[in-house]
């Protein structure tokens, strides 16, 4: 699946955040979006993941060059992991199963996919724990597991390591590396950590003056 953002504009309370912002995300791989605080990285991610509408401009999702309509079916092929995981007050298992259950998946498939996702983020041993008792690093990995369980074609990660310790940062980076090796998921993420960006990015992007630009690594 490819994503073309054309001339996206967005502002809040009269303040321009993005304007005339265009980019074509067209290869599986990892795009890392950087820029100063408040430059619109998260806003762009939320617009691209269909959580917010732009004030102007257009998003075009295509699959084999066929345009996709922006309905629930498309929304279920992409997902955004928020900087702070909205943990449901239930077990780790039920948290990861949520996205599968809303898709009406049967019990056996749910068990299998949840198991695989938790394994991928190294949290299989926490399956029965109440998710609200997890540390912030574990919560972030839970957020990743929830997203990975639904096999997204585009995975948006908003500051995935902003509030976690070094150990969990390394774990999360290795999860993103493994995703890259699998080569099935396009990852579009934001970070303010230059070293992390250098380690993870196939394509490095910057937002400056409300626009997106590509930088050579």
């Amino acid at each position: 699946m490819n994503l073309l953002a054309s001339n996206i504009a967005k502002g809040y309370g009269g303040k321009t955040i993005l304007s005339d912002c265009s980019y074509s995300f067209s290869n599986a791989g990892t795009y890392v979006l950087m820029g100063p605080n408040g430059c619109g990285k998260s806003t762009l991610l939320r617009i691209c993941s269909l959580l917010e509408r732009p004030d102007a401009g257009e998003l075009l999702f295509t699959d084999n060059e066929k345009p996709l309509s922006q309905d629930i079916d498309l929304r279920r092929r992409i997902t955004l992991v928020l900087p702070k995981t909205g943990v449901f007050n239930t077990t780790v298992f039920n948290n990861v199963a949520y996205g599968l259950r809303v898709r009406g998946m049967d019990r056996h498939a749910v068990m299998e996919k949840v198991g695989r996702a938790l394994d991928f983020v190294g949290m299989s041993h926490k399956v029965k724990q109440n998710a609200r008792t997890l540390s912030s690093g574990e919560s972030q990995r839970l957020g990743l597991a929830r997203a990975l369980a639904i096999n997204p074609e585009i995975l948006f990660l908003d500051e995935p390591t902003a509030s976690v310790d070094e150990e969990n940062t390394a774990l999360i980076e290795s999860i993103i590396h493994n995703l890259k090796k699998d080569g099935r998921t396009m990852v579009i993420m934001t970070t303010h950590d230059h070293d992390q960006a250098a380690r993870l990015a196939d394509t490095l992007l910057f937002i400056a003056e409300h626009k997106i630009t590509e930088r050579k690594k």
Partner: protein
Amino acid sequence: MDSLLDGFLQAFKLIIHLDQMLFGIILLSLKVSGFALFIATAIGVPAGALLGLKRFPGRDLAISSVNTLMGLPPVVVGLFVYLLLSRKGPLGFMGLLYSPTAMVVAQTILALPIVTALCHSAIVNIDPIIRLSARTLGATPGQETIAVIREARYGILSAVIAAFGRVMAEVGAILIVGGNIAGYTRVMTTTIALETDKGNFELALALGIILLAISFTINSLLHFVQRKGSAPGS
């Protein structure tokens, strides 16, 4: 009655033997309040969710009104239902005045604002990130709503228990619309009022003790539920 102590002793004897009349009164109390609570919950939880999750014109007014109605004086509700159901009232043709049904109607009116207002407050206290997370994971708007309601489940249960406490302890409204007819509309609170008037303190005390025991159970349950909601995994 010689002394208060004697009254208590007689009361305990009544409770231990639990004669049929006493049992009937307790059962009717639980039935009327339980049924009223069932209706209030069936309407109040969706109404609370609507107030908490949807934006619509007049929403603020609706929230203020529901909060105000939480403090409805029972006798006023009794009077209102009485006028509605009395022979000359708009619903007089149904012949419901002085029946358990009329008592259920009155208690439902008392319980509904409590369930609605406390559910609303439980739901608005859920972090908006829960709804957003559900959306990122592919939930439809309906599924998002269910996710938020499920997250607020402990608060909602507390709302229901609080309303049950209120209707169980209530006397003014059901006395007016039920009429305190022996074996038909006589419940614990109305019996206590009547028997105290008659100087028959043993029965009044016995019922008072049972009412307190029920109230204690409800409050313990409420405390347990609240603790479970605020401290997961503990």
